[in-house]
């Protein structure tokens, strides 16, 4: 199944809205993890607006597809999409990072509807998602579980323990998505700790692996619509992305992993995202 031009245009507008929501949160919280939240926006938009079976009016619907943000610091992307989907009032975005906010610096499932797991420490999400996928198999449910990780996160050993278990239990309802923006807090991922070759690693762990352009809806859509690619095998989608994608000064610059905007930068961001007139 191919995505239509209209759908692509629609998703592009949603992606823009999601980035705008993030800037609103960063403005309110006076900082936030920009780089990774912007690099995964197209993936998140495609998931929530073309793929996931979910119901914002019934967040705990037992047949829903689950989305786990294993890289919990990208929570701005998650809050943004949950707001855009209608899980909560968009006004809440302005409480980001304030005292006792339901939108803390890392997601908390007890505070915000639609959040599936309390992530933040890296390398936890794949196992939690794996457990959900395994429960789905035991209960003969049809839901799928999507887990988004960063490429820096892949260095964590617990990721590979979870990958082994998922493969052993033939969890073809489990999809790992690696947001490979090639940067982490302290620089190039290949310099901090080279985790390449990702495809070969995931394949050797028994996962069906494919690479996509993480900013190209056609490519993302094609991958998401063909899961499982192979019966009985979990899927790993390696999404090649640009950290900070959408803001010229932040793109491919590891210093924007976490952004505390100056007034000047914020002005620029508002112009680039067309928010001045909003």
């Amino acid at each position, binding site marked *: 199944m191919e995505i239509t031009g209209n759908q692509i245009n629609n998703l592009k507008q949603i992606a823009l809205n999601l980035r705008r929501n993030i800037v609103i949160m960063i403005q309110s919280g006076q900082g936030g993890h920009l780089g990774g939240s912007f690099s995964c926006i197209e993936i998140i938009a495609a998931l929530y607006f073309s793929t996931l079976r979910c119901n914002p009016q019934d967040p705990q619907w037992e047949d829903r597809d689950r989305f786990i943000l294993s890289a919990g610091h990208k929570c701005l992307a998650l809050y943004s999409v949950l707001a855009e989907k209608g899980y909560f009032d968009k006004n809440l975005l302005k409480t980001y990072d304030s005292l006792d906010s339901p939108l803390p610096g890392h997601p908390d499932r007890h505070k915000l509807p639609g959040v599936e797991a309390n992530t933040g420490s890296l390398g936890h999400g*794949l196992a939690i998602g*794996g457990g959900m996928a395994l*429960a*789905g198999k035991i209960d003969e449910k049809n839901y799928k579980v999507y887990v988004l990780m960063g490429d820096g996160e892949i260095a964590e050993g*617990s990721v590979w323990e*979870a990958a082994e278990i998922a493969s052993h239990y033939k969890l073809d309802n489990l999809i790992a998505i690696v947001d490979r923006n090639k940067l982490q807090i302290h620089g190039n991922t290949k310099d901090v700790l080279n985790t390449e070759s990702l495809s070969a690693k995931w394949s050797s762990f028994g996962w069906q692996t494919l690479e996509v352009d993480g900013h190209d809806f056609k490519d993302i859509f094609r991958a998401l619509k063909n899961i499982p690619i192979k019966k009985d095998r979990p899927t790993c989608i390696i999404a090649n992305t640009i950290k900070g994608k959408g803001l010229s000064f932040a793109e491919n610059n590891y210093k924007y992993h976490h952004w505390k905007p100056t007034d000047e930068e914020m002005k620029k961001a508002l112009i680039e995202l067309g928010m001045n007139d909003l």
Partner: protein
Amino acid sequence: MKELNDPRKVFGKQVLELAKQDPRILAISTDSSGSSGFAPFKEYFPERHLEFGLTEQAAIGFCAGLALNGKIPFFCAITPFITMRCFEQVRDDLAYTFANVKIVGRNSGLDYSYLGYTHQSLEDIAVIRSLPNMVVLAPSDPIEIRACVKEAAEHTGPVYIRIGSEKMPTFHNLSYHFSLGKGEILQKGRDITLITMGGMVWRTMEAAKELVKLGIKVGVISMPTIKPLDCELLLQVSKETDVILTIEDHSVVGGLGSAVSEFLSQENPTRIIKLGVPDVFSTTGSYSELMEKYHLSKDGIVNSVINVIKKKKSNYTG
């Protein structure tokens, strides 16, 4: 001598019995189902026993995911591996998440006497009780193990149960009623009260019999729930006894003795002596040798009490 039972087998059988009534219950192991007491479970419910190999960190995460989708996983493994190797997963994925997972540390304390410090577990209570939302249980005999496992299954939220592997006698009656968060007064005594847990309880009772013969009025309290602690009982005991001796097959740093001290130092300052493994790396030897070495055998407890009483008297006279 009364019949002795392996606590792991008692535990595993009870999980199986409960699983027959509750389809949500699963047994989880990391390459040690037999020695975790799950052999009968595995035979009866092969599809409800999940083997995760040597992946304690991911196993806790999988348990959390299973629990968030309505399952009640009972995950049993060697104590340091299930409490400390994966401590952050227990912290984030179970406690913080409030996942309905039951983790069971086996061969706790000094039970792996010959295998040395890596396999012995002297810090598990200290680390696990530091987490909000966690319930920490250390049952003292087969009847209490069964009761604690049942309580864990019925309680919503994460629970840690500490069991040993040394065979233990049954001293509770079948009519015994276990209540979460409640301690049990086994005997009262004005001179000194011994507060203990798990496999140390029956040893302490044996020691108490000797002490009574020596004319010492000794009380014995069993604390099967370390968290939440029975503060009401502690307050009562602190008012009725001159000195408290806590006894545990655990480090004196952070365990039962620390929990008792933390509470009473604020609410009713009381003299508390902690008998346990001192702040050292434990050594190897036979189980009975280690218990002797750390004064946790019957004689060790008796002598410790006598020393405390002597000191108390010399303080009065001095």
